């Protein structure tokens, strides 16, 4: 038997174990999530607002810096039309609670132990975040986090807030 057969067979077996590329949606998926307080939140409820979906976990190193930074961003920009959902993907609730006990926050936190949100959004790393415009389109994606990401977030959010939408009220200027 020719060696090319064995090479082809080996490649087939090796490739069979790899996952196919996850779909990367262009519009926000239809999902229902549960907040820490037990309330149900739908992504569709945020239509007309600019929404930042941040996916984090207690075991994720960069999340320790992204979480408070994004919370501060939320406090600053929420009055201008920004909403934020911090999606926790810890399998155990107590891990999330312990993290949150050390990281006081104002932004809404929802629980997703099954990982439905990162699956639906096609997340590629931890943390991951997605910026959704007023029409429900996913406009910007972030894989990972560093302090250098914050100015980029600001630029992107300002751009989305400026765009016409259900609650748009003119030019938005966001400081550095």
């Amino acid at each position, binding site marked *: 038997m020719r060696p090319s057969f064995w090479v082809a067979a080996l490649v087939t077996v090796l490739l069979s*174990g790899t996952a196919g590329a996850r779909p990367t949606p262009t519009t926000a998926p239809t999902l229902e999530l549960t907040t820490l307080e037990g309330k149900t939140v739908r992504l569709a409820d945020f239509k007309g607002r600019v929404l930042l979906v941040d996916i984090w976990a207690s075991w*994720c190193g960069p999340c320790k810096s992204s979480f408070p930074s994004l919370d501060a961003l939320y406090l600053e920009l929420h009055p201008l039309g920004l909403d934020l959902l911090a999606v926790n993907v810890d399998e155990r609730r107590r891990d999330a609670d312990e993290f949150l006990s050390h990281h006081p926050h104002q932004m809404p936190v929802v629980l997703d132990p099954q990982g439905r949100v990162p699956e639906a959004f096609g997340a590629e*790393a931890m943390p991951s975040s997605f910026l959704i415009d007023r029409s429900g389109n996913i406009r910007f994606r972030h894989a990972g986090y560093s302090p250098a990401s914050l100015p980029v977030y600001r630029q992107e959010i300002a751009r989305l807030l400026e765009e016409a939408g259900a609650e748009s009220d003119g030019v938005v200027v966001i400081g550095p």
Partner: protein
Amino acid sequence: MSLLCRTVVLAGVMGLSAQGCATVQPWQRGRLADPCMTFDSDAGRVAYQTHWQEAREGAAGGFGVQSGGCGCK
């Protein structure tokens, strides 16, 4: 054993072995990111050693827990 028979058996074995392959998604790596998963009996010492190595090299990542198992960037 004929060539056809050997090919079928081999293809079967390769197919069965491929069933064990799975991709752990980034958000599913909580257990892999646990310090106890490092390839060393002393996770604390490894963390300290990694810290000064990163400071000396001016680069971070690729040392096991973070950037290794957890899918963090």
